[in-house]
């Protein structure tokens, strides 16, 4: 249907425009043939005609060239000295669409209420899936907004719906005034649009970033299923009819290559969007954030084009030193580097189109693009990003994007190179109709005039912009500014105080401008009128605005991550590293070795012993007096999570994944490296009985989210029991979500596992039976698949739990379903049933000494860890805190104090034991040949409060070094100071920003 639409479009423009609406009154058929002559034509980013003609007929460019025959029916417009550019295209606006409303779902409606609401239509169950919405149906041209966008050179924009996660389909429209939507729409349904939303409250799924991603993935899987289900039904109508779902229906075209856009709020979000797009082979465009330069290679590698904002930040307020302290280097650097984002993306080979999106004031758009050009973006690339690139992305480069015959007559007329700072857009033409921006008067009043009033001869100089003229009157050596100069059509108003130039009182003039002459009358003080006439004696000089001192910006390279304490490159992995003369806590059967050496080869421990020979070229570290331990492993962490630790809406959210939302830039990674932590079990929160999937990370600071993942670690998932999941401490409003008791917790877990088994059965049946006849396949269910993996022993359960009753309950449920709980987390009453935990084979990951913060932990004791360990439970101490994670070695010491573990056994609580619990003990957790060289060098006994961590190594690379840290502090300070100086330079050279009378929304 849409294809037919285009095919019709082009011939229709070539003939007289057909319209379906009956004509009211007389028919209106003015000739629409123009020849714009003597003009410089920038046809496309690569092709310019220095002086030529553009012929337009009925909204379409008929011909372009240096030597074009002007048709005899054309109206000729002489554009000497002017420049024509292709009209700009913005692929991400909300032009002509209703402003975002407060949606019912964003308010604090009870979860149950939402479920019970009477549903209208056949859209998706989730209120954030609005994929079937068509912008077309809500679109109405908006004259004011169109004018604003035209003022920046735009002729065509994509209008994108603004609500929900799946937002629906956009409409491509011209920015023409006074026409019906029917006439300005170019393409009725262009792309599907997806964005991550902030959750509102704890009621409506999703309220976390990982929930957003899970919902998007599940919805695409549902859309795939939907097609196959209906396909099966059409082939075998004797089957039970599948559900009708207009939201999934609307996604079919997206799965077949229609563009899908994703909004990325930062560079890591970009990678998240790209991953989803890849999973479903989508034709994706990603709406940028302005932060892409920070991870430009990774962004390049996704291969997706970027719809790029020019939202370069304002200079931060650094005048008050106390307030400035609150602005971090990362923010300062972004201010400095943001205008270079387009250049750096281009250098890396990323395709992008510019958008006004994310600009607080779209009237600054062109100025920002010019800033990008000034910071090194080639002009032709900038032009392409405004014209041909978006046209190609739309698949409409046959009719849009350049000034070539056969294309829509969409172009811009400027007074000079559009990337010059003071160039003006005079007119914008859209489909062969002109719209004034700066305006092009028939006769330009600007220049030097010799005027006569009565017997006085005066020189009048008029300058400025057509919409904002100014001038000065001179008589002999006396002169005065004009109080008023304005042009209305060809009528010029002038007023000045005559006293200064020898005429008594105020002089007011009304004159009509013609080519080179003016005629009218002047009224002077006392009401006397005289004839006024003037002759132009010179054209206006090319006005150079007050030359401002340009602030010079040398390029500042990014660090990984950007800001303080980032690395300029990945820490090196020396071929050999030899640690000499250390006290080595192996956390293995070899125990603690005094005066020992450890040899590391390419990131793996090769040998531990006395007097090891240094291989040639080995990096040798003299660790005399120091202690070396395995890297600390935190078995319970929420570090490095973006967009919410909990998907706290639904009781079961096994489909959400921490791996989707890793924030590799979290400074807490670095801070924990400084406490000797090398790996962490990053878990979903405890808001639901079955929470999300965890990610085991290695703290490879500076690398990308996916590169932090501990690849050898088995998959896992968070469970939670007790007060949190039954919403005991959520407030009085939360009394309706199932479960509200520990009894219900057990049942909902059993229910979920049963559902997973049923799901497996359904698939098995389908696989078997569909060989014989056409059947509707089961829906791929990400939640049930994760649960099934648990039952198959492929996914480890990490269960937040406190009281002995609930702990035992979970062990028994697991035993009933034939699997083993990997770790009980917190497990503060584990000491009461340690023998049962040991027998089941679960690990226990506990706090050293927390208690009494809520009722279910009133019986917690600091001896818990030691007691469980002694009774045979593999026990670890965890942090559950960005801060405590920095001191896990000291937490371990508490097991010596309370319960009397030996120092060596105590250290195991934060090294080999958590490794065993996470099933990564083959690789890490102790210092033994063949294991990853993840280790820490301490200034003394790691269990002493007086000890500090000096170096932290992962796979033979040094990620933390206290001496290096001290240097990085200095570097950050210097860079900070440099940028703050720049901010002052810029602020002192700033000039007023262009302003609209009314701020756009």
């Amino acid at each position, binding site marked *: 249907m849409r294809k037919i639409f285009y095919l019709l479009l082009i011939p229709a423009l070539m003939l007289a425009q057909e319209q379906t609406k009956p004509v009211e009154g007389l028919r209106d058929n003015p000739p629409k043939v123009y020849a714009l002559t003597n003009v410089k034509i920038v046809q496309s980013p690569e092709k310019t005609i220095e002086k030529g003609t553009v012929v337009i007929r009925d909204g379409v460019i008929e011909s372009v060239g240096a030597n074009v025959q002007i048709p005899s029916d054309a109206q000729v417009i002489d554009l000497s000295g002017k420049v024509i550019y292709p009209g700009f295209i913005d692929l991400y606006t909300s032009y002509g669409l209703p402003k975002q409303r407060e949606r019912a779902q964003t308010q604090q409606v009870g979860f149950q209420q939402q479920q019970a609401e009477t549903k209208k239509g056949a859209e998706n169950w989730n209120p954030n899936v609005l994929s079937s919405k068509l912008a077309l149906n809500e679109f109405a041209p908006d004259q004011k907004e169109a004018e604003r966008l035209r003022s920046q050179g735009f002729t065509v924009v994509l209008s994108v719906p603004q609500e929900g996660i799946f937002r629906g389909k956009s409409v491509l429209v011209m920015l023409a005034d006074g026409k019906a939507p029917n006439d300005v729409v170019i393409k009725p349904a262009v792309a599907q649009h997806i964005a991550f939303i902030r959750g509102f409250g704890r009621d409506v799924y999703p309220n976390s970033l990982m929930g957003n991603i899970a919902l998007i993935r599940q919805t695409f899987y549902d859309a795939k299923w939907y097609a196959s289900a209906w396909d099966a039904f059409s082939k075998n109508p004797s089957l039970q009819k599948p559900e009708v779902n207009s939201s999934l229906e609307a996604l079919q075209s997206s799965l077949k290559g229609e563009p899908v856009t994703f909004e990325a709020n930062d560079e890591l979000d970009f990678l998240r969007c790209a991953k989803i797009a890849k999973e479903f082979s989508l034709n994706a465009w990603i709406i940028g954030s302005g932060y892409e330069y920070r991870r430009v290679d990774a962004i390049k590698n996704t291969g997706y084009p970027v719809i790029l904002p020019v939202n370069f930040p304002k200079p931060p307020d650094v005048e008050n030193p106390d307030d400035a302290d609150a602005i971090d280097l990362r923010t300062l650097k972004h201010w400095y580097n943001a205008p270079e984002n387009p250049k750096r993306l281009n250098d890396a080979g990323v395709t992008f189109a510019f958008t006004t999106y994310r600009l607080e004031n779209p009237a600054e758009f062109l100025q920002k693009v010019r800033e990008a050009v000034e910071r090194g973006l080639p002009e032709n690339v900038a032009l392409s990003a405004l014209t041909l690139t978006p046209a190609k992305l739309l698949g409409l480069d046959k009719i849009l994007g350049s000034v070539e015959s056969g294309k829509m007559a969409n172009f811009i007329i400027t007074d000079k190179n559009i990337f010059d700072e003071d160039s003006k857009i005079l007119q914008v033409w859209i489909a062969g109709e002109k719209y004034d921006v700066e305006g092009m008067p028939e006769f330009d009043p600007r220049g030097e005039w010799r005027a006569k009033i009565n017997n006085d001869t005066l020189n009048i100089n008029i300058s400025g912009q057509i919409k904002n003229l100014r001038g000065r009157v001179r008589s002999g050596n006396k002169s005065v500014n004009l109080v008023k100069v304005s042009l209305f059509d060809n009528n010029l108003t002038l007023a000045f105080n005559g006293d200064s130039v020898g005429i008594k009182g105020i002089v007011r003039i009304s004159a009509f401008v013609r080519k080179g002459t003016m005629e009218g009358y002047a009224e002077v003080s006392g009401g006397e009128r005289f004839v006024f006439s003037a002759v132009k004696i010179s054209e206006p000089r090319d006005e150079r605005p007050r030359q401002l001192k340009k602030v010079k910006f040398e390029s500042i390279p990014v660090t990984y991550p950007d800001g303080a304490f980032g690395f300029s490159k990945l820490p090196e992995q020396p071929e050999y590293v030899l640690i000499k003369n250390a006290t080595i806590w192996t956390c293995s059967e070899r125990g603690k070795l005094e005066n020992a050496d450890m040899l590391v080869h390419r990131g793996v421990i090769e040998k531990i012993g006395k007097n090891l020979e240094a291989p040639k070229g080995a990096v040798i570290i003299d660790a005399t007096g120091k202690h070396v331990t395995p890297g600390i492993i935190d078995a319970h962490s929420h570090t490095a999570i973006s967009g919410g630790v909990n998907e706290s809406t639904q009781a079961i959210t096994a489909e959400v994944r921490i791996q989707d939302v890793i924030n590799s830039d979290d400074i807490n990674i670095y801070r924990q490296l400084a406490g000797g932590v090398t790996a962490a079990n990053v878990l979903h929160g405890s808001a639901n009985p079955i929470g999300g999937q965890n990610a085991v990370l290695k703290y490879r600071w500076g690398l990308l989210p996916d590169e932090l993942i501990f690849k050898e670690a088995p998959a896992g998932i968070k469970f939670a029991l007790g007060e949190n999941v039954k919403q005991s401490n959520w407030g009085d409003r939360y009394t309706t979500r199932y479960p509200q008791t520990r009894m219900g917790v057990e049942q909902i877990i059993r229910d979920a596992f049963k559902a997973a088994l049923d799901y497996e059965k359904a698939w098995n049946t389908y696989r078997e039976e569909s060989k014989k006849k056409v059947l509707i396949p089961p829906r791929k269910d990400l939640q049930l698949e994760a649960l099934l993996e648990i039952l198959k022993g492929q996914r480890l359960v990490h269960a937040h739990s406190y009281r002995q009753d609930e702990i035992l309950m979970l062990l028994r449920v697991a035993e009933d379903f034939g699997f083993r709980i990997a770790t009980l987390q917190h497990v503060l009453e584990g000491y009461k049933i340690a023998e049962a935990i040991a027998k089941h084979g679960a690990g226990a990951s506990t706090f050293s000494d927390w208690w009494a913060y809520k009722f279910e932990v009133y019986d917690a004791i600091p001896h818990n860890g030691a007691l469980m360990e002694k009774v045979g439970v593999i026990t670890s101490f965890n942090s559950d805190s960005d801060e405590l994670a920095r001191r896990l070695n000291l937490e371990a010491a508490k097991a010596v104090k309370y319960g009397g573990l030996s120092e060596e056994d105590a250290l195991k609580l934060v090294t080999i034991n958590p490794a065993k619990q996470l099933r990564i003990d083959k690789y890490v957790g102790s210092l033994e040949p063949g294991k990853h060289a993840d280790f820490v060098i301490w200034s003394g006994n790691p*269990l002493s409060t007086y000890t500090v961590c000096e170096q932290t190594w992962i796979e033979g690379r040094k990620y933390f070094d206290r001496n290096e840290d001290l240097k990085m502090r200095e570097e950050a300070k210097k860079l900070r100071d440099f940028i703050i100086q720049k901010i002052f330079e810029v602020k002192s050279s700033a000039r007023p920003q262009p302003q609209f009378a009314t701020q756009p929304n």
Partner: protein
Amino acid sequence: MKIKIISLIFALTLIFVMNLYASDIIPGKPQNKPIALVGGTIHTITNGTIENGIVLFDKGKIVAVGKDVNIPKDAEVIDIKGKHVYPGLINAFTTIGLVEIGAVRATRDVTEVGLVNPNVRAEVAFNPDSEHPPVTRANGITLALVVPTGDLIAGQSALMMLDGWTWEDMTLKAPVGLHIYWPRMVQAQGFGFMFARQSPEEMKKETEKRLQLIRETFQKARAYKKAKEAETQKGVPYHDTDLKYEAMIPVLEGKVPVFVHANSAKEILSAIQWAESEGVKIVIVGGADSWKVADVLKSKNIPVILTNIHRLPSGRDSDYDEPFTVAYKLYKAGVKFCIGGEGGYYNERNLPYQAGTCAAFGLPREEALKAITIYPAEILGVADKVGSIEPGKDATLIVTTGDPLEIPTQVIYEFIQGRKVDLSNRQTKLYEKYVEKYRRLGLLK
């Protein structure tokens, strides 16, 4: 049968109630004869360390300290060879006794409603039978400053001995200070994905309003004091009582200092400027950024109670060890300071490890020890009674297996005003109970 069930329920309820509200640890007996601790290393704090020394105390007071001390015949002699004696540790920022279980509203007595509560007194709500004092003192903390919390003028703190029958027995000094939580003057960094914060403009407005309220409250208190003083004169009418302003009179008279909870440099300076114009004595509590204004603090002789040493650095760019190095920086600058706790109730026993961390990051070890003994005693105005082992001071001291700043160290004896304190507590009893379980199962010896 029915009766049985009912009585069972009753019994269970009783156990429950007892567990929740009553500690079954019995307070120490008043000292009825001299006690001599003999043979240990005595860390006097103020007069050096005495190896193989003797501490003699009687009637709750230290009588003699040294190598040659005459031990009275009737004295109880405790051999502590190889052990160490320290003054009881003092935690200068807690809410012990005011909160039992944070999530259970019924057990919270720490924040009164409203912004202006100068009259509320911590000691009267201190629950002597809370489980927290025994757990806390088991790690050598003998004294805790118990502080009301709030959003502005929160109330008066009390220095409590962590052993006794009633809050009156247990109060060493009250009021210690009037606590004002200074309005936030610096916007926290960053934005959460989930929740929008107050805008900078809103925060500024609110801060201005609150600063104004502090000034007004003091102005009114001064006027009140004047009116009350005047009413004794002839012809001046009686002025009706206002508890709030009444409570502030000792502050205006300089008898009670104001404890200003402030962290950013801007807040600290703002508080100092206010205190000078108001003519009141202040102590800074918190003091995260106090190192940035150390010279001001030094020159104006304003002490700082550093709190929450184990916290994250204030900003993304801050040194990872920023919170750990503040004490050292104040020490170097010559500012009077001590290391306080975290304003909590359940893990305030970990105070010595916070001091240990300060030592790991530069503070000399003896200073770290002083920062939780004599320095808090000085800042809280009780250095004549506690904080060091000196004749004449309270016999509030601990005997340990080693350096109390090291985690594996155990406290083996503890005396508060000469009373020998029971070091068992809810947690050790639960521990023993379950050790017994595993003994019976043959899993432990």
